[in-house]
């Protein structure tokens, strides 16, 4: 698979993301601590520019041992939110938190010699 360097790893701070286009291919690159993940910038819902959306933590309901609710709060999961209609995707898995079958297309990404490389289709 052809690979292309899209920038320096040091340019992307922890928790940040950027979106690049290489020809027709658009890719979102996300830094999660020391790890980098990348997904195609195409939402499985209606093809929206999902990676150009905002990052939010997931939301969970606070359920007590007696099954009563204490409302909602942010979880530790990092999500990217598609700006078209709000589909969210867990950045670790690329999957929709409400239906794991709905997922972003992962793009192989690696860091070498301080550079971020993504695979592009040949």
């Amino acid at each position: 698979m052809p690979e292309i360097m899209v920038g320096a790893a040091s340019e992307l701070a922890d928790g940040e993301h950027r979106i690049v286009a290489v020809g027709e291919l658009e890719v979102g690159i996300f830094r999660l601590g020391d790890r980098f993940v990348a997904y195609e910038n195409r939402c499985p819902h209606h093809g929206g520019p999902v990676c150009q959306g905002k990052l939010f933590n997931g939301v969970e309901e606070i359920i007590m041992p007696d099954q009563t609710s204490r409302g909602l709060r942010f979880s530790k999961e990092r999500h990217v939110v598609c700006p078209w209609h709000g589909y969210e995707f867990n950045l670790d898995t690329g999957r929709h938190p409400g239906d794991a079958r709905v997922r972003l297309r992962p793009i192989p990404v690696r860091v070498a010699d301080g550079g971020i490389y993504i695979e592009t289709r040949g």
Partner: protein
Amino acid sequence: MTGSRGDSPTSAPAVRELEKITIRSDTRDVLAHAAKSARKLTDYFIVDIDAHVTETAFWSDITDRIDNDYLRQAAKSFRERGGSPPGLLNAQPGMSFQDMFGRIPHQQQQAEAVSGEGTHRQVELTRRAMDSMGIDYTVAFPTPMLLLGMHPQAEVEVALGRAFNRWLVEELLPREPRIKAMMYLPFNDPDSCVEVVEEFADEPGVIGFTVVSTRYRPVHHNSYMRLYAALQAAGKPLAFHSGFHWGDESMKQVNRFISMHAISFCYFNMIHLTNWIINGIPERFPKLKVIWVESGLAWLSFMMQRLDSEYMMRTSEAPMLRRRPSEYIQDMYFTSQPLETSNLKLAQATMEAIKADTQLLFASDWPHWDFDLPTTITNLPFLTEQAKRNILGLNAARLFGFEVPRHKLAQVPGPEPALAK
């Protein structure tokens, strides 16, 4: 608009940086992916029966057009309040959760730059969206005014409704003939509705009239018969544009916006459609065309079956009807958005039941959070090519008399009925 960030770190191919989408993003950037799909639909005639303006962004221009000097001053006085709230409007801005607390920037605010003189900001925003989606004509509806039917002061609905109509007719429609409008009817005051029809029916660009459905008024009440007669005589369709109201006693039982929004947009149109049919309004005004806007389609299979079942047992309570309720529904028009597609078999059955190939009208609802694109229709696997073309624009062309450019009139050979695979 988005451009290259600079040189690629490798020689070729070039790496372009794409910007994150914010409230300041250009509509053409937000909809860049839609524009790519639209390039494959250039020989489709596409009419967007339901797109929205954000009237509060131009609220002074609208309220300056209020006839009544007392109400005009009242609206004006709000401009000196902190935050300049839209005076006289009853929407609850603190509970408008459509943008999911910032997750959907274009619903939060369209704060993009609009350069150049000579056109209206709203016209430019609408054009950008239309061109991105490949839309030939669009019909402009308001946004927070969709709740105006719940205003406790009928005279305020009359004043704001007429002012909004004038703003559309004076500011928007003359500047862009591809933008059309269905005039706001202040339905809490039946006599004023008739005056609106008389005043605006012949205005260029006015293709019908709208009742915003979120209200507690029985559409079969005798006080509305003059209005329906006037609409029928004018030959202009009547749209019931649905909406939500979390303050409704039933809706107060649900604790999340998702629940209220999902039910509310169907709930109000369910009530009005039931009254409309059971009281035989289609028999009394057989030439009056009715469009049900922004309730999606899933509610219709329920309504058709439910009303038919009860009608066959309790026919004595609906003596005006000569056919089953579902058959009247098949004569009505519906807009497609928000199209429910999680179960395609149900979607197909519903489209067949309502005779979508002649009665369904594409709508985007842009710039709202649950908008649809023309590809929402073209991607449906069970529609014939002709049905897609009808739904996207040719049905609207027939209903409203739009002229269709020759190259978009493609007749696609296919089995009848058009929906059959």
